[in-house]
C-alpha cells in the first residue's frame, strides 16, 4: 500500500513538473478516474470475465500437463536426457512464434488461444516441479524406500508433498507465463462479441491512449497482486505446517 502511495506521489510530482506533455505522461488523477470509469462499464466486466476464464482454463490445463511432464522427466533418466533441456527451450520461445501452429491446428478458436497459453506456462510449471523434486532431501527418500514406498506410491505420498513448496513457487511463475502468453494470445483472433483484457490493452496502445493504457495496466497489476495473495496464503499455510516460518 505504502509503495503504491509513493509511486503515485512521485508520478504526480513528475506530472506537475510538466516534464512531458499529458498525452505522453498523463495525470495520475485522470488515470485513476479512468480506472473508476472502466470498472463501471459492463463491457469491462465481460472482458475481464472472458480473460479470466481463458486464464483459468489455460492455466489449469498447463498445470496438468506441466505436472505430468515434470513428474515423468524427474523420474526417468532417459526422459530427462531426452527432453529435459527441451522444456527450458520451449519456455524461452516467444508466444507469437506459436501463432501459426495454433491457427494451423485449432483454427481461429478459443482452443488456439489456450494452446498459446499452455505452451507458455506448462514448461515453467514442469521446470518448477522438476527442480522441486531434485531438491527433496535424500534422507526422506531413503526413509520412504525403507518403508516400502516405490514408483507411483513414492511420488504420491513422498516426493510430491516434499516438493510442494518449490512446486508452489513454480506454479506462481507458471501463472505469470500463462497470463503474459494470454495477453499476446488474445490478439490472435479478436472475437468481436467477446472483448478481452489483452485486446483492450493492445488497442489502448494502438490508439496511443496513454491514460487508458495506464488504467488497464493498473488493473492488470491489481489482478496479479490478487493472484499472488492467493498463492502466498497457500504457501504460507504449507510452510507453517512444516515449521518453515521464521520465529522472528
Amino acid at each position, binding site marked *: 500500500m505504502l509503495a503504491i502511495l509513493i509511486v503515485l506521489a512521485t508520478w504526480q510530482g513528475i506530472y506537475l513538473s510538466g516534464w*512531458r*506533455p499529458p*498525452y*505522453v505522461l498523463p495525470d495520475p488523477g485522470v488515470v485513476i478516474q479512468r480506472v473508476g470509469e472502466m470498472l463501471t462499464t459492463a*463491457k469491462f466486466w465481460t*472482458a475481464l470475465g472472458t480473460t479470466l476464464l481463458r486464464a483459468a482454463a489455460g492455466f489449469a490445463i498447463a498445470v496438468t500437463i506441466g505436472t505430468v511432464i515434470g513428474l515423468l522427466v524427474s523420474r526417468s533418466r532417459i526422459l530427462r536426457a531426452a527432453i529435459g533441456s527441451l522444456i527450458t527451450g520451449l519456455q524461452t520461445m516467444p508466444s507469437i512464434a506459436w*501463432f*501459426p501452429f495454433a*491457427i*494451423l491446428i485449432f*483454427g*481461429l478458436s478459443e482452443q488456439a488461444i489456450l494452446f498459446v497459453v499452455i505452451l507458455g506456462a506448462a514448461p515453467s510449471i514442469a521446470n518448477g516441479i522438476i527442480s522441486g523434486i531434485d531438491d527433496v532431501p535424500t534422507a526422506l527418500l531413503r526413509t520412504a524406500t525403507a518403508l516400502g514406498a516405490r514408483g507411483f506410491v513414492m511420488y504420491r505420498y513422498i516426493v510430491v508433498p516434499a516438493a510442494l513448496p518449490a512446486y508452489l513457487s513454480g506454479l506462481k511463475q507458471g501463472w505469470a507465463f500463462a497470463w503474459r502468453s494470454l495477453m499476446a494470445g488474445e*490478439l*490472435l*483472433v*479478436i*472475437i*468481436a462479441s467477446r*472483448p478481452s483484457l489483452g*485486446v*483492450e490493452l*493492445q*488497442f*489502448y*496502445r*494502438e*490508439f*496511443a*491512449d*496513454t491514460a*487508458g493504457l495506464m488504467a488497464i495496466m493498473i488493473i492488470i497489476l491489481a489482478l496479479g497482486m490478487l493472484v499472488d495473495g492467493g498463492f502466498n496464503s497457500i504457501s504460507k499455510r504449507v510452510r507453517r505446517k512444516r515449521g518453515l516460518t521464521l520465529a522472528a
Partner: protein
Amino acid sequence: GPDSVRLGYFPNLTHAPALIADAKGFYAEHLGATNLEVSTFNAGPSTIEALFSGAIDMAVIGPNPTINGYAQSGGEALRVVAGVASGGAALVVRPGIESVSELKGSTLATPQLGNTQDVALRTWLAGEGLSADTEGGGDVSIMPQENAAALQAFNSGQIDGAWVPEPWLTRLVEEGGGQVLVDERELWPNGAFIVANVIVRAEFLEDHPDTVEAVIEGHLDSLDFIAKSPDEARSVFNTKMDAITGQSINDEYLVEAWENVDFLYDPLPDTLFTGAEHAVAVGLLNEVDLDGIYDLGPLNRVLESRNLEPVASP
C-alpha cells in the same frame, strides 16, 4: 453455395467498407443461406496464417501481406478479387522542416521495415537524391516503428517525422503539431494507390465463385453507402470500432482522416506491381512473380450486373 464463408478484416480505418458492410448486414443480404463468419485480426501475419491454414476464406488486407502470401505459397494460396481503399498516407514532419533538403540528417519513422509506407518513403527519398539504407544509415535515418510508438516518439521529440497511414497521419498533425510534407497521393498517377484489397483463398474461389461474388456485392453496397451518406457511414464505422476494440476514433480526427482515404472497388493492380518493384529496388523484397495474383472475374461480373464499367485486368 457453402454452409458458410469466413471473412477476416482489421478494425482499421482503411478497412472501413468491411466494418460497415458487416455492421449493416450488406454481406448477409447477398449471401442467402450461406452463413457469414467474421474474424478480426490486428496484424497481417496472423491473417495470412489463418488463410493459409484454411481458418478463413476471405480477408481484407494490405498489399504487403498480399504479396508475401502469394509469393510464399508459390502463387497457390490466394487471389486478389477487389480493391478496398487508396491513399491515406503521408510524410508528417515537425514544424521547421519545410523542404526536402532540410531532411538531411533527420530521423524518420515508418510503420514497418519493408511495408508500403516504408517502401514509399525510401523510394521517394531516393528520387529526391537522399540516401537511406535499410540499416538506418545514410542522409536520412529510417527507424521502423509501430504507429503508436511513432506517435509517442514524435510527441516527445525523438523523431523528426514519420510516413504513416491514417488515422495516425491526422493524429501526428493534430496531437503532435506536425505538418504534412508529402501526401503520398501526389506521387502516384491519378493520385490513387492501393492500401487495402480483398483476397480470397484460391481453393475457395475455385469451389464457390458465387459466394465470392455475393461478398463482393455486399462490398459494393457498402461503398455505395459510404459515398452516399458519409456522415452516417462514419458513425456506423466508429460504433463498430468501439464494439471490436473498445476504442473509437476521435470524431474530429475521423472526419479529417476520412477525407484523406478513398474507398474503391478497383484493386489498382498497377500500383501493387509498382509498389513491389519499388520494394525490390530498395532491396526489401526479392524478385517475385506476381502473374496470376488477380482474379477479377467475379468483380467484373458483379459490376456488369450493376451496369458499371469493368475494371482492367493486369
